[in-house]
Protein backbone atom coordinates (compact mmCIF):
# COMPACT_ATOMS: atom_id res chain seq x y z
CA UNK A 1 0.00 0.00 0.00
CA UNK A 2 1.67 3.22 -1.15
CA UNK A 3 1.51 6.46 0.72
CA UNK A 4 1.20 10.02 -0.60
CA UNK A 5 4.41 12.04 -0.56
CA UNK A 6 4.94 14.51 2.26
CA UNK A 7 4.93 18.03 0.90
CA UNK A 8 7.35 20.89 1.21
CA UNK A 9 10.61 20.22 2.96
CA UNK A 10 13.77 19.33 1.17
CA UNK A 11 14.55 15.72 1.98
CA UNK A 12 17.38 13.60 0.73
CA UNK A 13 15.91 10.99 -1.57
CA UNK A 14 17.21 7.75 -0.11
CA UNK A 15 16.06 8.60 3.35
CA UNK A 16 12.66 9.80 2.31
CA UNK A 17 11.72 6.75 0.29
CA UNK A 18 13.22 4.29 2.71
CA UNK A 19 11.69 6.06 5.66
CA UNK A 20 8.25 6.25 4.11
CA UNK A 21 8.39 2.62 3.12
CA UNK A 22 9.45 1.46 6.55
CA UNK A 23 6.81 3.62 8.17
CA UNK A 24 4.29 2.08 5.83
CA UNK A 25 5.36 -1.44 6.83
CA UNK A 26 5.20 -0.67 10.51
CA UNK A 27 1.74 0.84 10.09
CA UNK A 28 0.60 -2.23 8.17
CA UNK A 29 2.08 -4.52 10.79
CA UNK A 30 0.17 -2.73 13.48
CA UNK A 31 -3.02 -2.82 11.45
CA UNK A 32 -2.65 -6.57 10.87
CA UNK A 33 -1.96 -7.09 14.55
CA UNK A 34 -5.06 -5.23 15.67
CA UNK A 35 -7.10 -6.97 12.97
CA UNK A 36 -5.96 -10.40 14.18
CA UNK A 37 -6.56 -9.57 17.83
CA UNK A 38 -10.10 -8.29 17.30
CA UNK A 39 -11.06 -11.12 14.97
CA UNK A 40 -9.58 -13.74 17.29
CA UNK A 41 -11.47 -12.45 20.32
CA UNK A 42 -14.68 -12.62 18.32
CA UNK A 43 -14.13 -16.33 17.70
CA UNK A 44 -15.29 -17.12 21.19
CA UNK A 45 -18.55 -15.21 20.99
CA UNK A 46 -21.79 -17.11 20.67
CA UNK A 47 -23.28 -18.53 17.50
CA UNK A 48 -19.98 -18.85 15.68
CA UNK A 49 -20.07 -22.61 15.50
CA UNK A 50 -22.21 -23.07 12.35
CA UNK A 51 -20.11 -20.58 10.40
CA UNK A 52 -16.89 -22.14 11.69
CA UNK A 53 -18.10 -25.57 10.59
CA UNK A 54 -18.99 -24.12 7.20
CA UNK A 55 -15.52 -22.63 6.83
CA UNK A 56 -13.83 -25.85 7.96
CA UNK A 57 -15.70 -27.48 5.10
CA UNK A 58 -14.37 -25.01 2.56
CA UNK A 59 -10.87 -24.58 3.92
CA UNK A 60 -10.22 -28.02 5.33
CA UNK A 61 -12.37 -30.75 3.92
CA UNK A 62 -12.24 -29.55 0.35
CA UNK A 63 -8.47 -29.06 0.44
CA UNK A 64 -7.93 -32.61 1.67
CA UNK A 65 -7.74 -34.33 -1.76
CA UNK A 66 -5.18 -31.80 -3.02
CA UNK A 67 -3.09 -32.02 0.13
CA UNK A 68 -3.10 -35.81 0.06
CA UNK A 69 -2.13 -35.89 -3.62
CA UNK A 70 0.75 -33.48 -3.08
CA UNK A 71 1.77 -35.43 0.02
CA UNK A 72 1.82 -38.69 -1.89
CA UNK A 73 4.06 -37.35 -4.62
CA UNK A 74 6.32 -35.50 -2.21
CA UNK A 75 6.85 -38.72 -0.29
CA UNK A 76 7.47 -40.65 -3.48
CA UNK A 77 10.00 -38.20 -4.85
CA UNK A 78 11.75 -38.02 -1.47
CA UNK A 79 11.98 -41.79 -1.48
CA UNK A 80 13.52 -41.75 -4.94
CA UNK A 81 16.02 -38.97 -4.33
CA UNK A 82 17.11 -40.08 -0.88
CA UNK A 83 17.53 -43.68 -1.98
CA UNK A 84 20.02 -42.77 -4.68
CA UNK A 85 21.92 -40.55 -2.29
CA UNK A 86 21.96 -43.01 0.61
CA UNK A 87 23.05 -45.89 -1.61
CA UNK A 88 26.40 -44.16 -2.00
CA UNK A 89 26.95 -44.35 1.77
CA UNK A 90 25.57 -47.85 2.05
CA UNK A 91 22.95 -46.58 4.50
CA UNK A 92 19.74 -47.21 2.60
CA UNK A 93 18.31 -48.52 5.84
CA UNK A 94 18.08 -44.90 6.99
CA UNK A 95 15.55 -44.10 4.26
CA UNK A 96 12.61 -44.49 6.62
CA UNK A 97 14.06 -42.09 9.17
CA UNK A 98 15.11 -39.56 6.56
CA UNK A 99 11.71 -39.43 4.89
CA UNK A 100 9.70 -39.45 8.11
CA UNK A 101 11.77 -36.77 9.80
CA UNK A 102 11.97 -34.42 6.84
CA UNK A 103 8.23 -34.73 6.27
CA UNK A 104 7.11 -34.39 9.85
CA UNK A 105 9.50 -31.62 10.80
CA UNK A 106 9.57 -29.44 7.70
CA UNK A 107 7.92 -30.44 4.46
CA UNK A 108 4.59 -31.46 5.97
CA UNK A 109 3.69 -28.17 7.64
CA UNK A 110 5.24 -25.95 4.97
CA UNK A 111 3.89 -27.64 1.85
CA UNK A 112 0.46 -28.17 3.38
CA UNK A 113 0.32 -24.48 4.28
CA UNK A 114 1.36 -23.44 0.79
CA UNK A 115 -1.19 -25.72 -0.87
CA UNK A 116 -3.98 -24.46 1.37
CA UNK A 117 -2.90 -20.87 0.74
CA UNK A 118 -3.12 -21.43 -2.97
CA UNK A 119 -6.55 -23.01 -2.66
CA UNK A 120 -8.38 -21.52 0.28
CA UNK A 121 -6.31 -18.44 0.99
CA UNK A 122 -6.81 -16.95 -2.43
CA UNK A 123 -10.52 -17.67 -2.25
CA UNK A 124 -10.76 -15.99 1.17
CA UNK A 125 -9.13 -12.85 -0.18
CA UNK A 126 -11.23 -12.73 -3.31
CA UNK A 127 -14.49 -13.43 -1.51
CA UNK A 128 -13.98 -10.79 1.13
CA UNK A 129 -12.49 -8.38 -1.42
CA UNK A 130 -15.52 -8.60 -3.69
CA UNK A 131 -17.81 -8.21 -0.73
CA UNK A 132 -15.89 -5.08 0.10
CA UNK A 133 -15.97 -3.48 -3.32
CA UNK A 134 -19.64 -4.33 -3.86
CA UNK A 135 -20.29 -2.60 -0.54
CA UNK A 136 -21.75 -5.67 1.14
CA UNK A 137 -19.51 -5.05 4.14
CA UNK A 138 -20.93 -1.55 4.46
CA UNK A 139 -24.40 -3.12 4.28
CA UNK A 140 -23.46 -5.39 7.19
CA UNK A 141 -22.34 -2.30 9.07
CA UNK A 142 -25.68 -0.63 8.53
CA UNK A 143 -27.38 -3.72 9.90
CA UNK A 144 -25.16 -3.44 12.97
CA UNK A 145 -23.46 -6.76 12.27
CA UNK A 146 -19.77 -6.75 13.04
CA UNK A 147 -18.23 -7.69 9.70
CA UNK A 148 -15.06 -8.83 11.41
CA UNK A 149 -16.97 -11.30 13.56
CA UNK A 150 -19.19 -12.39 10.69
CA UNK A 151 -16.59 -12.79 7.97
CA UNK A 152 -13.10 -13.08 9.39
CA UNK A 153 -13.35 -14.89 12.72
CA UNK A 154 -14.84 -18.11 11.34
CA UNK A 155 -12.08 -18.26 8.73
CA UNK A 156 -9.32 -17.81 11.27
CA UNK A 157 -10.83 -20.40 13.60
CA UNK A 158 -11.40 -22.83 10.74
CA UNK A 159 -7.80 -22.40 9.60
CA UNK A 160 -6.45 -23.11 13.07
CA UNK A 161 -8.53 -26.31 13.11
CA UNK A 162 -7.81 -27.44 9.56
CA UNK A 163 -4.10 -26.83 9.12
CA UNK A 164 -2.86 -29.33 11.71
CA UNK A 165 -5.33 -31.97 10.53
CA UNK A 166 -4.27 -31.57 6.93
CA UNK A 167 -0.60 -31.59 7.96
CA UNK A 168 -1.21 -34.95 9.64
CA UNK A 169 -2.74 -36.28 6.41
CA UNK A 170 0.22 -34.99 4.43
CA UNK A 171 2.75 -36.58 6.78
CA UNK A 172 1.14 -40.01 6.87
CA UNK A 173 0.47 -40.21 3.15
CA UNK A 174 3.96 -38.87 2.47
CA UNK A 175 5.49 -41.66 4.56
CA UNK A 176 3.37 -44.15 2.62
CA UNK A 177 4.58 -42.56 -0.62
CA UNK A 178 8.14 -43.06 0.51
CA UNK A 179 7.26 -46.68 1.26
CA UNK A 180 5.91 -47.07 -2.28
CA UNK A 181 9.07 -45.90 -3.97
CA UNK A 182 11.58 -47.20 -1.45
CA UNK A 183 10.17 -50.63 -0.75
CA UNK A 184 7.82 -51.53 -3.55
CA UNK A 185 9.77 -49.90 -6.36
CA UNK A 186 13.40 -50.01 -5.26
CA UNK A 187 13.30 -53.16 -3.18
CA UNK A 188 14.18 -51.98 0.30
CA UNK A 189 13.27 -54.00 3.34
CA UNK A 190 9.69 -53.15 4.37
CA UNK A 191 10.19 -54.06 8.01
CA UNK A 192 13.24 -51.90 8.47
CA UNK A 193 11.55 -48.95 6.73
CA UNK A 194 8.69 -48.78 9.20
CA UNK A 195 10.91 -49.73 12.12
CA UNK A 196 13.18 -46.80 11.32
CA UNK A 197 10.17 -44.51 10.97
CA UNK A 198 8.87 -45.51 14.38
CA UNK A 199 12.15 -45.32 16.25
CA UNK A 200 13.59 -42.14 14.83
CA UNK A 201 10.51 -39.93 15.15
CA UNK A 202 10.16 -38.37 18.58
CA UNK A 203 7.24 -36.64 20.21
CA UNK A 204 9.10 -33.31 19.97
CA UNK A 205 9.23 -33.58 16.19
CA UNK A 206 5.51 -34.21 15.98
CA UNK A 207 4.48 -31.41 18.32
CA UNK A 208 6.93 -29.08 16.60
CA UNK A 209 5.34 -29.85 13.26
CA UNK A 210 1.87 -29.15 14.59
CA UNK A 211 2.93 -25.95 16.33
CA UNK A 212 4.27 -24.79 12.98
CA UNK A 213 0.99 -25.74 11.31
CA UNK A 214 -0.96 -23.60 13.77
CA UNK A 215 1.43 -20.65 13.34
CA UNK A 216 1.08 -20.93 9.57
CA UNK A 217 -2.70 -21.13 9.91
CA UNK A 218 -2.82 -17.86 11.82
CA UNK A 219 -0.46 -16.13 9.39
CA UNK A 220 -2.23 -17.29 6.23
CA UNK A 221 -5.78 -16.63 7.36
CA UNK A 222 -4.96 -13.24 8.85
CA UNK A 223 -3.06 -11.98 5.82
CA UNK A 224 -5.56 -13.27 3.29
CA UNK A 225 -8.56 -11.87 5.15
CA UNK A 226 -6.75 -8.58 5.84
CA UNK A 227 -5.86 -8.10 2.19
CA UNK A 228 -9.42 -8.81 1.14
CA UNK A 229 -10.99 -6.69 3.87
CA UNK A 230 -8.92 -3.60 3.12
CA UNK A 231 -8.80 -3.97 -0.62
CA UNK A 232 -10.66 -0.68 -0.98
CA UNK A 233 -7.78 1.15 0.63
CA UNK A 234 -5.29 0.19 -2.05
CA UNK A 235 -3.89 3.27 -3.69
CA UNK A 236 -2.65 1.59 -6.84
CA UNK A 237 -5.98 0.35 -8.22
CA UNK A 238 -9.72 0.40 -7.62
CA UNK A 239 -12.65 -1.92 -8.01
CA UNK A 240 -12.09 -5.26 -9.64
CA UNK A 241 -8.41 -4.62 -10.29
CA UNK A 242 -7.75 -4.01 -6.63
CA UNK A 243 -9.31 -7.35 -5.74
CA UNK A 244 -6.96 -9.03 -8.22
CA UNK A 245 -3.95 -7.23 -6.81
CA UNK A 246 -5.00 -7.98 -3.25
CA UNK A 247 -5.33 -11.66 -4.01
CA UNK A 248 -1.89 -11.75 -5.60
CA UNK A 249 -0.29 -9.90 -2.68
CA UNK A 250 -2.10 -12.08 -0.19
CA UNK A 251 -0.92 -15.36 -1.69
CA UNK A 252 2.64 -14.18 -2.30
CA UNK A 253 2.95 -12.54 1.10
CA UNK A 254 1.50 -15.62 2.80
CA UNK A 255 3.95 -17.96 1.10
CA UNK A 256 6.94 -15.76 1.88
CA UNK A 257 5.88 -15.35 5.50
CA UNK A 258 5.27 -19.09 5.80
CA UNK A 259 8.88 -19.74 4.91
CA UNK A 260 10.26 -16.93 7.07
CA UNK A 261 8.22 -17.98 10.09
CA UNK A 262 9.22 -21.59 9.40
CA UNK A 263 12.82 -20.58 10.01
CA UNK A 264 11.95 -18.56 13.10
CA UNK A 265 9.80 -21.27 14.68
CA UNK A 266 12.36 -23.96 13.85
CA UNK A 267 15.14 -21.99 15.49
CA UNK A 268 12.96 -21.44 18.54
CA UNK A 269 12.04 -25.09 18.80
CA UNK A 270 15.51 -26.50 18.35
Amino acid at each position, binding site marked *: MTRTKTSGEKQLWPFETVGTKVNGWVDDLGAVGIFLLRAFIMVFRAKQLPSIVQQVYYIG*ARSAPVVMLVGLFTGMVLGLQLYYTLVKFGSTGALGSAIALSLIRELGPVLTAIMITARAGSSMTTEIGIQRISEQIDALYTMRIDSLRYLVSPRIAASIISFP*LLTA*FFDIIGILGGYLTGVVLLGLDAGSYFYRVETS*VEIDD*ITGGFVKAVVFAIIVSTICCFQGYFTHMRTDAHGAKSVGLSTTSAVVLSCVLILISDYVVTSLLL
Partner: protein
Amino acid sequence: MKKYSHETVVGAFVVIGLVAIAYMTVKLGNVSLLGDDSYSLYAEFSSVSGLRVGNPVEIFGMEVGKVEGFRMDQEKQQVVVDLKIKTGIDIYDDAIASVKTAGLIGDKYVSIDPGGSDELLKPGDFILDTQSPIDLGDLIGKYAFGDIKKDGGETKGEEE
Protein backbone atom coordinates in the same frame (compact mmCIF):
# COMPACT_ATOMS: atom_id res chain seq x y z
CA MET B 1 -23.75 -31.96 -3.73
CA LYS B 2 -26.74 -32.11 -1.45
CA LYS B 3 -26.43 -35.84 -0.78
CA TYR B 4 -23.98 -35.27 2.07
CA SER B 5 -24.48 -32.10 4.03
CA HIS B 6 -21.48 -29.94 4.73
CA GLU B 7 -21.64 -30.84 8.39
CA THR B 8 -21.22 -34.52 7.69
CA VAL B 9 -18.19 -33.95 5.54
CA VAL B 10 -16.64 -31.65 8.12
CA GLY B 11 -17.37 -34.15 10.84
CA ALA B 12 -15.74 -36.94 8.89
CA PHE B 13 -12.77 -34.73 8.05
CA VAL B 14 -12.17 -33.72 11.65
CA VAL B 15 -12.55 -37.28 12.92
CA ILE B 16 -10.13 -38.70 10.37
CA GLY B 17 -7.73 -35.85 11.06
CA LEU B 18 -7.79 -36.46 14.80
CA VAL B 19 -7.26 -40.19 14.25
CA ALA B 20 -4.26 -39.37 12.06
CA ILE B 21 -2.82 -37.07 14.72
CA ALA B 22 -3.44 -39.65 17.43
CA TYR B 23 -1.79 -42.38 15.35
CA MET B 24 1.25 -40.23 14.76
CA THR B 25 1.52 -39.26 18.40
CA VAL B 26 1.14 -42.74 19.82
CA LYS B 27 2.83 -44.93 17.25
CA LEU B 28 5.57 -42.65 16.05
CA GLY B 29 6.11 -40.55 19.13
CA ASN B 30 7.37 -43.46 21.18
CA VAL B 31 4.84 -43.06 23.94
CA SER B 32 6.33 -45.32 26.55
CA LEU B 33 4.93 -48.81 26.49
CA LEU B 34 6.81 -49.87 29.61
CA GLY B 35 4.88 -47.81 32.10
CA ASP B 36 4.02 -49.51 35.35
CA ASP B 37 4.92 -53.07 34.55
CA SER B 38 8.63 -52.44 34.87
CA TYR B 39 11.16 -52.26 37.67
CA SER B 40 14.35 -50.29 38.14
CA LEU B 41 17.86 -51.63 38.35
CA TYR B 42 20.99 -49.59 38.74
CA ALA B 43 24.42 -50.08 37.24
CA GLU B 44 27.60 -48.13 37.83
CA PHE B 45 29.86 -47.35 34.91
CA SER B 46 33.15 -45.54 34.78
CA SER B 47 32.06 -44.00 31.47
CA VAL B 48 28.71 -43.74 29.72
CA SER B 49 29.99 -41.80 26.75
CA GLY B 50 27.32 -41.67 24.04
CA LEU B 51 24.55 -43.26 26.12
CA ARG B 52 21.34 -41.23 26.26
CA VAL B 53 18.06 -41.38 28.16
CA GLY B 54 15.69 -43.62 26.19
CA ASN B 55 18.37 -45.85 24.70
CA PRO B 56 17.25 -49.50 24.78
CA VAL B 57 18.36 -52.18 27.23
CA GLU B 58 18.82 -55.55 25.53
CA ILE B 59 19.26 -59.10 26.74
CA PHE B 60 20.45 -61.55 24.07
CA GLY B 61 19.55 -58.90 21.50
CA MET B 62 15.92 -58.49 22.58
CA GLU B 63 14.77 -55.14 23.92
CA VAL B 64 13.69 -55.54 27.54
CA GLY B 65 13.78 -51.99 28.81
CA LYS B 66 15.06 -48.45 28.51
CA VAL B 67 17.65 -46.22 30.07
CA GLU B 68 15.68 -44.05 32.45
CA GLY B 69 18.25 -41.62 33.78
CA PHE B 70 21.76 -40.90 34.98
CA ARG B 71 23.19 -39.90 38.33
CA MET B 72 26.75 -39.05 39.31
CA ASP B 73 28.34 -40.88 42.24
CA GLN B 74 31.23 -38.57 43.02
CA GLU B 75 32.68 -40.59 45.88
CA LYS B 76 33.17 -43.66 43.77
CA GLN B 77 33.82 -41.56 40.61
CA GLN B 78 31.25 -43.51 38.65
CA VAL B 79 28.01 -42.77 36.81
CA VAL B 80 24.94 -44.56 38.15
CA VAL B 81 22.58 -45.46 35.31
CA ASP B 82 18.92 -46.08 36.12
CA LEU B 83 17.66 -48.96 33.95
CA LYS B 84 13.96 -49.70 33.64
CA ILE B 85 13.45 -53.43 32.99
CA LYS B 86 10.18 -55.12 32.05
CA THR B 87 8.63 -57.08 34.89
CA GLY B 88 9.06 -60.79 34.40
CA ILE B 89 12.58 -60.58 33.06
CA ASP B 90 14.90 -62.30 35.54
CA ILE B 91 18.33 -60.88 36.08
CA TYR B 92 20.68 -62.52 38.55
CA ASP B 93 23.24 -60.92 40.74
CA ASP B 94 26.19 -62.02 38.66
CA ALA B 95 24.83 -60.17 35.61
CA ILE B 96 27.16 -58.13 33.43
CA ALA B 97 25.97 -54.81 32.00
CA SER B 98 27.90 -53.35 29.10
CA VAL B 99 27.40 -50.31 26.90
CA LYS B 100 27.61 -51.32 23.27
CA THR B 101 27.11 -49.62 19.92
CA ALA B 102 24.50 -50.79 17.43
CA GLY B 103 26.54 -51.30 14.29
CA LEU B 104 29.79 -49.44 13.93
CA ILE B 105 28.55 -45.87 14.21
CA GLY B 106 25.08 -46.26 15.65
CA ASP B 107 23.13 -45.48 18.77
CA LYS B 108 24.43 -46.81 22.05
CA TYR B 109 22.50 -49.39 24.06
CA VAL B 110 22.98 -51.32 27.29
CA SER B 111 23.44 -55.05 26.84
CA ILE B 112 22.87 -57.25 29.91
CA ASP B 113 24.10 -60.79 30.26
CA PRO B 114 21.65 -61.96 32.92
CA GLY B 115 24.01 -64.40 34.57
CA GLY B 116 23.11 -67.73 36.08
CA SER B 117 23.57 -67.58 39.81
CA ASP B 118 20.81 -68.42 42.26
CA GLU B 119 20.10 -64.96 43.53
CA LEU B 120 17.67 -62.76 41.62
CA LEU B 121 18.20 -59.03 41.58
CA LYS B 122 15.33 -57.19 43.22
CA PRO B 123 13.97 -53.80 42.11
CA GLY B 124 16.46 -51.13 43.12
CA ASP B 125 19.46 -53.47 43.23
CA PHE B 126 22.78 -52.75 41.63
CA ILE B 127 24.37 -54.69 38.78
CA LEU B 128 27.92 -54.91 39.97
CA ASP B 129 29.77 -56.15 36.90
CA THR B 130 29.87 -53.44 34.25
CA GLN B 131 31.76 -52.65 31.08
CA SER B 132 32.10 -49.13 29.80
CA PRO B 133 31.80 -48.35 26.08
CA ILE B 134 34.77 -49.02 23.87
CA ASP B 135 36.18 -45.80 22.52
CA LEU B 136 36.93 -46.55 18.88
CA GLY B 137 39.13 -43.49 18.50
CA ASP B 138 41.28 -44.53 21.47
CA LEU B 139 41.64 -48.03 20.12
CA ILE B 140 42.70 -46.88 16.68
CA GLY B 141 45.10 -44.42 18.26
CA LYS B 142 46.68 -47.15 20.36
CA TYR B 143 47.10 -49.39 17.35
CA ALA B 144 48.52 -46.64 15.15
CA PHE B 145 51.00 -45.44 17.75
CA GLY B 146 52.19 -48.88 18.69
CA ASP B 147 50.89 -49.45 22.20
CA ILE B 148 49.26 -52.80 21.52
CA LYS B 149 51.49 -55.81 21.75
CA LYS B 150 50.96 -58.31 18.94
CA ASP B 151 52.59 -61.76 18.94
CA GLY B 152 54.90 -60.74 21.75
CA GLY B 153 56.34 -57.70 19.94
CA GLU B 154 55.01 -54.21 19.43
CA THR B 155 52.95 -53.17 16.42
CA LYS B 156 54.69 -51.14 13.76
CA GLY B 157 53.17 -47.79 14.55
CA GLU B 158 54.77 -44.70 13.17
CA GLU B 159 58.40 -44.89 12.17
CA GLU B 160 60.43 -43.50 15.00
